[in-house]
């Protein structure tokens, strides 16, 4: 009889654990889905990020006055500069929407771990950034007659975006709660995310001009390391900035 009780308790504990990790993922999914649905209705974020990216690429074109050969060597830099600038737009708006509509407070009241909010926002911000990148890449390829659809490059863009968005989500959550709001995010973000952007540019550049596998894989490993560090640091510190 007692043995049966212990087995029941243990099963219940395991069940609870499974349920809590399932609900953790469910909660994150709920936040991501909410953001995606809202975005697909209004297209607010993606359209502004997209238009901005294209304008930035245009400006770079005029500013750098590139001949075909030089263009090859600066493609990686121009792409990542574009993504970095457009990224701040997305991060800012995404967090501002959250705050203005009172969603953030609502989420904070919900009986979920704070990290759920972090990961939810992280994944939705990442999704928006990746969607914009997916559109910018073919446009850039066409405008500059370079084939940017190499699998290695797509991986680098994914990894770079993860690193950027991980720390960007944390800092955006902070900056949206200050008086200076939008202007502050790039000031906070760019110095900190410099290492990620550097590794991404090196990796992208290496892939585009067919560097040795050793060089490129080194940059990619570095990117992965940064992603891990920044995601970990961001989600651990997120609690401290959404306390009320």
């Amino acid at each position: 009889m007692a043995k049966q009780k212990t087995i029941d308790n243990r099963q219940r504990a395991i069940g609870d654990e499974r349920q809590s990790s399932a609900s953790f993922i469910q909660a994150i999914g709920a936040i991501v889905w909410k953001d995606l649905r809202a975005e697909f209705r209004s297209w607010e974020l993606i359209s502004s990020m997209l238009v901005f990216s294209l304008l930035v690429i245009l400006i770079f074109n005029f500013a750098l006055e590139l001949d075909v050969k030089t263009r090859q060597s600066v493609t990686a830099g121009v792409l990542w500069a574009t993504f970095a600038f457009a990224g701040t737009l997305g991060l800012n708006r995404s967090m501002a929407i959250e705050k203005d509509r009172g969603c953030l407070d609502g989420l904070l009241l919900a009986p979920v771990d704070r990290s759920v909010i972090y990961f939810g926002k992280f994944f939705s911000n990442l999704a928006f950034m990746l969607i914009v990148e997916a559109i910018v890449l073919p446009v850039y390829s066409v405008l500059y007659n370079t084939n940017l659809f190499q699998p290695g490059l797509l991986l680098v863009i994914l990894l770079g975006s993860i690193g950027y968005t991980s720390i960007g989500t944390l800092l955006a959550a902070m900056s949206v709660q200050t008086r200076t709001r939008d202007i502050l995010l790039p000031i906070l973000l760019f110095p900190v995310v410099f290492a990620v952007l550097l590794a991404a540019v090196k990796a992208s550049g290496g892939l585009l001009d067919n560097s040795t596998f050793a060089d490129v894989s080194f940059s990619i490993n570095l990117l992965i390391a940064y992603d891990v560090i920044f995601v970990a640091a961001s989600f651990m510190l997120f609690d401290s900035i959404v306390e009320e």
Partner: protein
Amino acid sequence: MNQKPLALKVLDIVSLILLLAAAYLAIVVAPTEKVMGDVQRVFYFHVGTAWVALIGFVFTAVLSVIYLITKNLKWDRIQVAAVEVSVVFFLITIILGSIWARPAWNTWWTWDPRLTTAAIAELIYIAYFMLRQGIDDPDKRARFGAVYALIGGLSAPITFFAIRLFRTIHPVVIAGANAEAEGNFSMSGDMLSAFFFALFAFTVIFIDLFWNRIRLGEFQNEVEEMKLKASY
């Protein structure tokens, strides 16, 4: 605000004397370096301020952790003081480095790992102040400051190693552009004493300015509290 403690008054005077003494040792006593000439003498103050500022930045990250754990605003005031004085010292470091670079490397600036990271680190800590400026609630200001200082403190060494590692993959081929090669010199006896004395002097000066800045922060806090009371 309380009267300035005697120890601090003494420290003020001692710091000034040490600064002047360090300058004397660096300018008069140390021998002139053969290849670069007198400009090499800025090196003593350059390294002195750099060393102290970098320790200040590391100390800042530690203070972040302490604040986030204890939630005692005293640590926030100490952190602000540490960041402010470190920013000032590091600015001196960067400017002196640039002044030294001009005759030694024929350029005011180069994008080598140390200088790039230095510029980024300085920008991070300036951003720290801009972040704090935009927040009125002292508790929130302290929390956000602590989080950002921690992130910044984490990313600065990461950035340094990133740039450093990439420089070793792509060795610099252009002659004379290797920032490490030119401007090296070995130090003789008098140079070493000027060097270590400058290091010691700046440590003391840092502590003096740091202590003064903490007291200013506490005074600020007192006045803020009085203002709050008066507004009721």
